[in-house]
């Protein structure tokens, strides 16, 4: 009897935690910041693709349709497989995708445009998977989570148009800091929570993969990474750092430590900010030393999901003083 009621209480407590975690309101400005950062990166991604569109994606290019289907997963799909593989069609699709990324950036019908960006990214990646790597997967996954987020509540053309139509009565309050006092900034948290869990999953997966390797445990992995000339050596670093076995060992273990600790400790109030800072510093350091295209910037945008506008209160001392008085 006691154990049954205890089980019931535990189940109820778990259900309560679930609801609190996924359904408490979050600040929509965080979603808006992610939207803006993400859309800017998609535009850079598309701009780099543009000069070689015919080369990568048309039937006259490097990977005709038949070869594309053979190298892609048998379960994959791509709109570009259904459309004629001509330069005109591919260029038209590209400009539609670019326009939708621009609309996502300014927040015009942002969720619909996030859905379209997701479809375009899947289509481009499956049409030619041989030019893709981890950053493309991260970009595609974030697009999926954006579809569910309240992207247009603030800092968007949608919110501007909505204010124009409904008039000043429904305009947001003037205090830019407090979401509690501004219902327009409140939104369901679950899509943001899914993105946070996705970011934690990436780090945890990477850490577990590394723990099964010998070189990450004996501290020599970064010796090998630093001698791969297609990845390493983006900007100058002191030679002594990567020529010294004990410094390399410390750096190697610190990578595993960050990838293991951040996804576990970032959920606690006391360690959230240090974890976000560690993750961002980790990516910036990698960005300095390695050629990984947009991977680190996409990851940084993803980690922004753990920040709240309150973390930036120190930027507004005058407003803070006014609130206190």
């Amino acid at each position: 009897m006691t154990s049954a009621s205890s089980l019931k209480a535990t189940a109820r407590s778990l259900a309560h935690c679930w609801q609190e975690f996924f359904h408490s309101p979050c600040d929509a400005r965080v979603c808006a910041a992610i939207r803006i950062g993400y859309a800017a990166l998609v535009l850079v991604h598309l701009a780099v693709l543009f000069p070689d569109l015919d080369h990568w994606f048309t039937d006259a290019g490097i990977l005709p349709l038949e070869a594309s289907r053979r190298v892609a997963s048998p379960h994959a799909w791509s709109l570009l497989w259904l459309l004629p593989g001509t330069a005109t069609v591919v260029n038209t699709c590209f400009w539609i995708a670019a326009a939708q990324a621009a609309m996502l950036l300014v927040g015009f019908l942002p969720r619909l445009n996030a859905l379209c960006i997701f479809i375009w990214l899947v289509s481009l990646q499956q049409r030619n998977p041989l030019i893709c790597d981890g950053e493309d997967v991260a970009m595609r996954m974030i697009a999926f989570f954006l579809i569910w987020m309240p992207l247009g509540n603030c800092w968007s053309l949608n919110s501007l148009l909505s204010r124009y139509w409904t008039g000043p009565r429904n305009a947001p309050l003037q205090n830019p800091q407090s979401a509690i006092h501004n219902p327009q900034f409140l939104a369901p948290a679950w899509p943001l929570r899914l993105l946070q869990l996705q970011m934690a999953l990436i780090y945890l997966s990477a850490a577990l993969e590394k723990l099964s390797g010998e070189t990450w445990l004996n501290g020599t992995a970064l010796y090998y990474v630093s001698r791969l000339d297609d990845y390493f050596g983006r900007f100058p670093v002191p030679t002594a750092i990567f020529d010294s076995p004990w410094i390399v060992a410390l750096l190697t273990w610190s990578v595993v430590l960050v990838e293991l600790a951040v996804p576990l400790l970032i959920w606690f109030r006391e360690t959230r900010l240090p974890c976000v800072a560690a993750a961002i510093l980790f990516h910036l350091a990698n960005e300095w030393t390695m050629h990984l295209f947009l991977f680190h910037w996409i990851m940084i945008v993803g980690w922004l999901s753990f920040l709240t506008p309150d973390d930036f209160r120190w930027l507004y001392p005058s407003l803070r003083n006014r609130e206190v008085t």
Partner: protein
Amino acid sequence: VAANFAGRPLPTRLRFYTVNTFIATLLVALAIDALPSPLALRLRVQAILTRLGLDQGSWSLFAPDPDSINLRLRAEITYLDGERREWNAPTWRTLTPWKMFIGHRRREWIEHMMAPESEPAWKPWCREMARTMRPDLPDADRGAEVRLIYHEAPVPSAENHPWPSIRQPPGFDAGWTLTIEKLE
């Protein structure tokens, strides 16, 4: 939120249940795909996730161990008229960060080409190479033979001291033939 939930109207409650089911299903599927899990289950889940455009696999970033070999690709093209041309992959360390940035897709392509899974792409790539190496010749690829060669430069074992400097360029071997493509 949870406390006030029981008294809500049916459509609201249904929406709530639907969202919770969606969250739970998605999280379980993503975890099976990205974290260590039984292979059979993983393959089944991956098939579904791929159909949804949500496949990610495990994040093996330089793991379980980073590569310990630098690789280069080279192609020798012999045209029908006997003319020979050679294509070489860029020497990465001589390129500026900007060139590496905008050439990222080409680098990915070349790296993928060295994997056996890319075999279906070898012939069309060779065809494209034969054409671009002689743009003045109409149907240059017709009858051409392309030999793809890869060169290896193993990174010396970390057990050997002193370590070579990161500034030391890799020394590549004489090369191995990846494939010979005869183009019709």
